């Protein structure tokens, strides 16, 4: 089962650049998420709870989302390139980020203060939307970033010595 999951999921393909792809996708996916936060008035509430300006909250959010995007693409590896299922994997990841970040971490760092009402709804919707957008974007961002087959196939570890990959020199 471990090798099966690795083959389909968390082992990225040999030509993939998951961290870069995830970071770029994470940043881009933040755009619609910010719109939702703004519409629900959540951005102002979060800035107030964190005791920072809206600009600083946005900057920190963008940075965090870039990191979270990179984590997503590395964690889901090969599966993150699935065009038909990416939206779902991303939305599930967005839900997890919401559950971990907004529900658990934010109240901890803010002394128990948390968004409520529409602002809380906005945080939820924005993170699930961010995740879905991230999942949709990754396969498309990833393709032009792939290393070329020509270049990677010259690596020694895929060459003839792979036949004795588990062997020692005698």
């Amino acid at each position, binding site marked *: 089962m471990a090798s099966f999951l690795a083959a389909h999921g968390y082992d990225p393909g*040999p030509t993939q650049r998951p961290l870069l792809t995830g970071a770029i996708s994470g940043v881009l996916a933040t755009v619609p998420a910010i719109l939702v936060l703004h519409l629900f008035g959540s951005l102002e509430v979060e800035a107030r709870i964190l005791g920072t300006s809206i600009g600083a909250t946005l900057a920190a959010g963008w940075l965090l989302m870039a990191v979270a995007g990179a984590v997503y693409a590395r964690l889901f590896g090969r599966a993150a390139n699935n*065009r038909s299922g990416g939206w779902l994997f991303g939305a599930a990841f967005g839900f997890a980020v919401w559950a971990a970040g907004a529900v658990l971490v934010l109240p901890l760092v803010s002394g128990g203060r*948390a*968004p409520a*009402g529409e602002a809380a709804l906005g945080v939820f919707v924005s993170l699930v939307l961010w995740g879905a957008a991230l999942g949709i974007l990754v396969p498309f961002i990833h393709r032009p970033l792939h290393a070329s087959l020509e270049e990677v*196939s010259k690596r020694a570890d*895929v060459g003839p010595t792979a*036949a004795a*990959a588990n062997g020692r020199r005698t």
Partner: protein
Amino acid sequence: MIRVVALRKAAVAGVAGAAAWEAVLRSLILAGVPTFDIVKSLGTLVFPQGPASAWWPTGMAAHVLVGICWAVFYAYFFWSRFDWRPPLQGLVFAALPAVLALAIVSPQLGLMQLDADEVQLTRDLIMPPLSALEIGGLVLGHAIFGLVVGAIYVRPVGYRNEPVGKRLAKVRERPRKAANGRPQGAGFIFAAGIECSYPTIEQGKWRRDEMDEMRHYQWWQRDFELAREIGITHLRCGPPLHLVLGGPGRFQWDLVDEPMAELEQFGPEPIVDLCHFGVPEWLGDFQNPEIAKALGEYAGAFAERYPWVRFYTPINEMYVTARMSTLDGLWNEQRKDESAFVTAALNLVAANVAMTEAILAKRPDAVFIQSESSEFYQACCPEPSIEERAAFENERRFLPLDLLFGHEVGDEMLGYLQQHGREAEYRRYLSREVPKRTVLGVDYYQWNEKLVDRDGQPRNLGELFGWSVIAGQYWRRYRRPMMHTETNFGNAAEAARWLWRQWHNVQLLRTEGVPLIGFTWYSLTDQTDWEIGLRRPDGTVDPVGLFDLNRDPRPVALSYKHLIDLHRDQPEYRECPALKELLN
């Protein structure tokens, strides 16, 4: 991709699951049971003070949307994980959303319904107390949802075996990359394959179609490009016989014309596989003696329409086709009976011969690569009954090829044919003249060598003697030019190692003087459900391809490209003496 998911079916299951939940829980609520009202909780987020006519459709829409998401999640990650009845699988899966609903979503919904934009969290806000009836309602709702999703989401791959043609997707014209043209020379064949099995299961009611499941019908142009990028010279591939051959003399060539035109113009050169484990619905199964005539006509018509095609595999793996259909009871006729095996084997050989003759009538210089699975049975112990069983199976594995190549069978196999009243047919094949340009294709996988255990049952041995030893047995029997026509490895992390080891097996036989013309990694992309021999339409993806189903390369693709780049310009590979002799 872990599984091939039927998104539409999963969405329908999600909608139905959410609707069933609401129907039961709404009835309870209307009957006065004070339980958790998920639709109202969601709807009043948008219409806090609104009437039911406002919050119910809104809440229901959100409820259905979440239901669809969970159903698709189930389809990807949980479906067919356990060998349970489908509704039970759904019920067990529903425990996950139920726990999340109780622990996270329900308290958060409470927070979202507050008339404030910020709160100081308290214990009651983080984990508001729910009554037993509210908890019971949430659990019951999820249980209903899981049961319904589980019951509806079944058979995500394949389709009803009906006499209707499916159309290949029209692929948008793309600029071709790495077009290397169709090689006409006699260079060593570095091949891959498009896995194109299409047997029926469920007593002929359900059609497996690997090309459909791998999305080859949508992605064929991309698949051919990928093959060219790797440097593959030849591609084992076949039109979907069950869709093209609509009836006697009725051919739906528009399914095939565009992909064939692309292969003709840009390569790789196809080795056309005309029958791969199944026949069209109107022909029934391999017990039907009419398949020889029908497939002969089909092959002749194919050769006439695509006269540039040089390489053919008329019927892929006749022994495996007959065995899986009549002894293992998994495909097509799904019998478990020796007489049916003999009938299927004879019908397959008759069809193969008819196809070969029909092709030769249109293309006299056609090359026939007769692929067969290399099998070997090792007796576990010096027990006469066990040794006899192994010896019998080691003779039976040759039966279809013996008939095709007009080779005499052993005494035991002769007795077997006599026992089933088929000796006369066997005798007729003995005088058959085998076409000059016939190649023996020998496939090899890690399950091809078997141990006959103390109960007389075969068990997988893994690679005991290896391809060169087993293929060597076939070589000594038939003395035909040979090709390694299929291999792959189930553990993607070990596949590159397996590729190189198979390659060294090929090299060993070449140095021993066996005229070998080619090597094949099968297949270009991952496949589905081969781990269970296609017996159920689960859609579980086997990571055996050079590329996964997203068309991202696996490490073995890099190794194969490395291997091809390393060898193709070496003198003995740039022009393969065995192939040159065959073509001359």
